[in-house]
């Protein structure tokens, strides 16, 4: 990658290059500033924040705010910390991502390799679901969850996120499989493989890049979702985002900014982790199919 960009880059003078790097550095610092503020204040005693400079490094280093945010902070009425809600979020996001990705892959497979009358119309309708604002589905979804007996539960949240994510995952996989040679499917048919075996043995092993794209997309969306989380969860099934809000918005007592900062970073860690681990596949996957070879 770097070899290519070096080879094709326009050669510039030393002065211009320094100017470019200084500008980029300034912007990088500017964008990193909030994270830096959060980090340094999350390892300070509260007194240092309320008494002085937010930008100063801590005089006394402490991990107490992190421990508090994780296990003892007051969330709503219970002093449980964010831990149970973090676990709720994991319990919600892992199945929701897995199910919506798998179903999207199956949909894409059927829509491209097992064409039927009206399949383009159906795909158009599924695409439509990408453009429906969250707010519109709130009340009908609440009613539906109530009827299904899933209101206020983690499985209910999983259901909501799977339904909402299907449009996107189907879109991704359909476009990926549209460029997939149909002759491979035919060869497998002649070899005696059926519908699911072609899917699991031929298509899925070749879907790595698009699976990564879909998983990142679904994971960040579902993990960061607040509206569905606050609307459809009960006391025991609240996801991390809602709990963080309850932690920060609590109106009694002193505002423990250091604990809030630590909590906010905790809430952002999983998405950060997913990006760092698979981010380089993300761009690669988005570009896949656009250029042959």
């Amino acid at each position, binding site marked *: 990658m770097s070899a290519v960009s070096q080879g094709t880059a326009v050669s510039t003078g030393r002065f211009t290059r320094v100017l470019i790097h200084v500008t980029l550095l300034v912007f990088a610092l500017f964008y990193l500033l909030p994270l830096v503020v959060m980090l340094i204040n999350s390892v300070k005693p509260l007194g240092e924040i309320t008494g002085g400079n937010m930008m100063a490094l801590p005089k006394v280093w402490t991990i107490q705010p992190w421990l508090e945010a994780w296990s003892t902070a007051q969330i709503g009425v219970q002093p449980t910390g964010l831990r149970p809600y973090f676990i709720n979020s994991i319990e919600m996001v892992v199945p929701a991502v897995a199910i919506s990705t798998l179903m999207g892959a199956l949909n894409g497979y059927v829509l491209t390799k097992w064409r039927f009358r009206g399949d383009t119309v159906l795909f158009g309708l599924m695409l439509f679901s990408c453009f429906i604002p969250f707010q519109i589905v709130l009340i009908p979804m609440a009613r539906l969850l109530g009827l299904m007996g899933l209101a206020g539960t983690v499985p209910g949240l999983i259901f909501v996120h799977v339904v909402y994510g299907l449009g996107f995952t189907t879109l991704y996989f359909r476009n990926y499989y549209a460029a997939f*040679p149909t*002759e*491979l499917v*035919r*060869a*497998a*048919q*002649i*070899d*005696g*493989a059926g519908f699911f*075996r072609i899917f699991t*043995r*031929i298509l899925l*092993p*070749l879907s790595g890049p698009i699976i990564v794209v879909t998983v990142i997309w679904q994971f960040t969306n579902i993990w960061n979702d607040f509206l569905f989380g606050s609307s459809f969860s009960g006391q025991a099934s609240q996801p991390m985002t809602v709990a963080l809000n309850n932690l920060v918005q609590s109106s009694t007592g002193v505002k423990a900014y250091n604990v809030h900062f630590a909590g906010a970073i905790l809430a952002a860690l999983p998405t950060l982790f997913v990006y760092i681990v698979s981010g380089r596949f993300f761009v690669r996957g988005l570009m896949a199919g656009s250029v042959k070879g």
Partner: protein
Amino acid sequence: MGFLDIANVTKSYGAVEVLHRVDISVAEGEFLVLVGPSGCGKSTLLNMIAGLEGITSGEIAIKGRAMNGVHPSRRNIAMVFQSYALYPNMTVAQNITFGLEMHGVPKAEREAAMTRVAAMLQIDKLLDRKPGQLSGGQRQRVAMGRALVRNPDVFLFDEPLSNLDAKLRVDMRTEIKKLHQSLRTTIVYVTHDQIEAMTLSTRIAVMNKGYVQQLGTPKEIYDTPANVFVATFMGSPAMNILPARVVMQDGAPHAAVIDAAGQTRHLRFSQPGMADWAGREILLGIRPEAITDPEGADRKSGNIQHLSNTVVVTEPAGADTFVTMTLSGRDVVGRMRADVAITPGQSFGFAINMDKAVAFDPATEARIAP
């Protein structure tokens, strides 16, 4: 009743019929080539034999068993695709044995079959590689290996050589022919390349616009084409087709053609039956190799007609020199020996082997004689 019977088969997409009442019966061990230009329906017909496309009406039977509606994997056929369609995620060995695995063949048997096929195709050193690491010719071999390992009743080839470069294509063509001679399996082979059709087949079906124009041995197709389409499609350079009038001279039918100077010239027909067409217009078909220099003329021919005419263009091609003249307003190509001395613009004495001439009805374009 043949080994593979295609009886009255048609194919329609909606209201559009793309294949019209195809009737072909293939005997066991035959090598049938379906040849024709793009869009003639040859690949559609092959896919119907494979079961990848439905049959609108008619019947396809293999070994006397009707195949309509039978799943591709239950027809005991194997297919080699134009793009090879090797599974990119599997090694060569896995590619070859995938079909056997799907049919529930035990592992030991699969291994044995694979070893046998790999040795036959000389791909035994490639078994652990992925298709992406193979050259075009190697992929082609693996694709054939995948077909061979199943021991099918019928092999289907869909333009298997069209992705190879010219030299490799000729080599693989010979390989396929050798393979057929040693295995004696029934093969149906689709191509748009008439040379492949001629060299490989025991019988050819020439197709155009969804019709089988002619079904016959390569020699029948080449020497007695059913119509102008078959005549011009098979053979390279194409058969010369020129308008002519049938006249009687000395009691024998002659073709009257007009040379470059505007003079009417008479070429005697080898077929006395052409007398029936006396006074009428026909289309005269002469293959380039039947137009030679006098020394290069076929000594066994009983009817060499000599004709001097102005040379328009010469094209030395190494083994032969192609010489173009104008007859009846058409460019007519002759095939001369390589070292013949001909200069464009000058007059030259052409020798035309009328034993090989073919006459067509200008209205229907169907063959009249021989």
